[in-house]
């Protein structure tokens, strides 16, 4: 005949105890609130930054890059940088299950000269139809047109920061000089921004045909870019190295080491700080309840003699910490949302690394639910042991007065 312990009376008794210690209960609630708020703000902000960087990197870069192994070739320029027999590589790539698409590139060092400025860098000669599958440029366009404009063969697409440095806008012309001395006048057809300086500062696209013609080698390419179906499986990289001599391969983890590490650091930071705060909050509740149980041993003994069972006592004390936890977590979620909102509207000075107007921050419902659950679970856990202790109080020993 185990009676239910979730009775109005037990809840009433618990509330009475909570209100008898308003200040401590309130402080304990604030502890949970801070833990939950911190968790929500940090996880939304950190994953916001992670997602932002991932998006910029993965929508702007291939997963694997195949290039010529320049250590094994005699000259740095011209003939030496071209991939030999790439039709065989193409055939191999077409057979691979995990490859979504691949694109050929003819990349060359060049100097870009505008009316007032010049920029030495590397120019990407691309095939518009292929490159479209590598890079989602349309979404990133700030002005002008995307890859389709490269069909004119005298056009160039450049990153926003580079455009600013060269002081050009769409329709302006730029002179491009290649290492062999050949030069060509190009019209800026489009300006794009990925939001990270590693791309926006240096990236340019021209038609591969244009570069090939200037270099005097038609149909020669320097690189193959690959997009994978499953980005985390880069086995094809090893297969390529084994099968083909004189090539190098680089995957997205190699090319974006700082970002990959940054993401990890941010994850660790989020979880460790939130965990530490919830631990402190939990310990606070544990402490308060423990002291209460010790101070209230007589009352617990009396409750037991007048008919309250051990389970009733567990409930009476556990519900106190659950109430603290639920209230703290609830207001923590609200405050967390408020702070996330403020952060999302805070203007951000463009840093050396990210180019955005406001801080990137996620608003994921799941994180709010998770924060709430963490808050409540912490308090349940913290409240459990003092509650058990309370239920073990032996009324005879206490009433005897020893």
């Amino acid at each position: 005949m185990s009676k239910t312990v979730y009775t109005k009376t037990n809840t009433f008794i618990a509330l009475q105890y909570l209100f008898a210690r308003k200040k401590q209960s309130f402080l304990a609630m604030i502890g949970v609130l801070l833990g939950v708020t911190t968790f929500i703000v940090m996880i939304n902000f950190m994953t916001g930054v992670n997602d932002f960087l991932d998006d910029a990197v993965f929508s702007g870069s291939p997963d694997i890059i195949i290039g010529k192994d320049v250590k094994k070739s005699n000259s740095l320029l011209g003939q030496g940088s071209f991939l030999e027999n790439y039709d065989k590589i193409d055939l191999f790539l077409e057979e691979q299950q995990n490859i979504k698409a691949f694109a050929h590139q003819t990349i060359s060092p060049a100097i870009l000269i505008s009316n007032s400025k010049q920029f030495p860098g590397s120019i990407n000669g691309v095939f518009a139809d292929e490159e479209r599958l590598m890079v989602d440029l349309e979404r990133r366009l700030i002005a002008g047109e995307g890859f389709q404009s490269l069909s004119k063969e005298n056009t160039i697409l450049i990153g926003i920061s580079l455009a600013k440095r060269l002081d050009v806008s769409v329709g302006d012309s730029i002179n491009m000089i290649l290492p062999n001395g050949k030069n060509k006048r190009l019209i800026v057809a489009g300006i794009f921004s990925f939001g990270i300086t590693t791309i926006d500062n240096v990236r340019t696209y021209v038609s591969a045909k244009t570069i090939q013609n200037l270099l005097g080698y038609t149909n020669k390419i320097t690189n193959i870019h690959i997009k994978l179906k499953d980005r985390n499986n880069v086995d094809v990289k090893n297969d390529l190295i084994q099968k083909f001599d004189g090539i190098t391969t680089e995957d997205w983890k190699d090319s974006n080491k700082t970002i990959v590490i940054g993401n990890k650091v941010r994850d660790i930071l989020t979880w460790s700080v939130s965990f530490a705060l919830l631990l402190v909050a939990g310990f606070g509740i544990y402490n308060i309840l423990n002291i209460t149980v010790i101070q209230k041993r007589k009352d617990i003994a009396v409750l037991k003699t007048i008919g309250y069972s051990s389970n009733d006592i567990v409930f009476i004390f556990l519900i106190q910490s659950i109430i603290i936890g639920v209230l703290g977590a609830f207001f923590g979620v609200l405050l967390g949302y408020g702070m996330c909102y403020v952060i999302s509207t805070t203007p951000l000075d463009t840093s050396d690394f990210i180019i955005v107007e406001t801080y990137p921050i996620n608003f994921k419902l799941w994180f709010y639910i998770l924060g709430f659950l963490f808050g409540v679970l912490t308090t349940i856990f913290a409240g459990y042991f003092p509650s058990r202790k309370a239920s073990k109080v032996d009324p005879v020993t206490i009433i005897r007065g020893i």
Partner: protein
Amino acid sequence: MILEAKHINKYFTEPERHQVLHDVSLSISEGELVSVFGESGSGKSTLLYILSTLDTDFYGDLTIYNQEIKGLTATGLTDFRNKHIGFVYQFHYLLPEFNVLQNVMLPAMKLSLKSKKEIESDALSLLEEVGMKSFAKRPAYQLSGGQQQRVAIARALINNPSLIVADEPTGNLDQKNSELIFELLKEITGSKNKAVVIATHNSKIYHNSDRSIEMIDGVVRL
């Protein structure tokens, strides 16, 4: 017969195993006020804790209200106590977070056979009987010892139990209050037809009880 105890033997293991109650047998009927009289340390409290089912670690048989106590589970025991036994302690032990009325209501709210309204009116009429109705909304800690003890008696009666166990209920009170409390307990026995057991070393109570049992070193002297 409300209570029947047969051959109760009780041992404590601290500091070493020693016997505190020796073959105590005793039965109490409705409307009877029985006092257990004896010096301090003679085993009165120990016996009362057993009779009130708080202590089940003893040898012998105890039947209350036709229920064999040793056959009850832990929760069964709490429920049984809640329903059938009222307890009054030497130190009044009201719960200070609650007001007088709430203290009296607590056992009935646990039993939850009646609505809160009914319990409240029951509690108020009991408080009236013990002369504490005007204090109903006062916090328990504001009351004097004698007043607290009267409230404790009201609390012991709220579930209309058949047995009231009082361990030195006047031990901590002055003469006037002692008499008042004893009169109350006597009245309960008479008018409500309950069985009351009082442990005491007050000879006045000893002489004014329906029946008295004297304990010497854990042995009942008849």
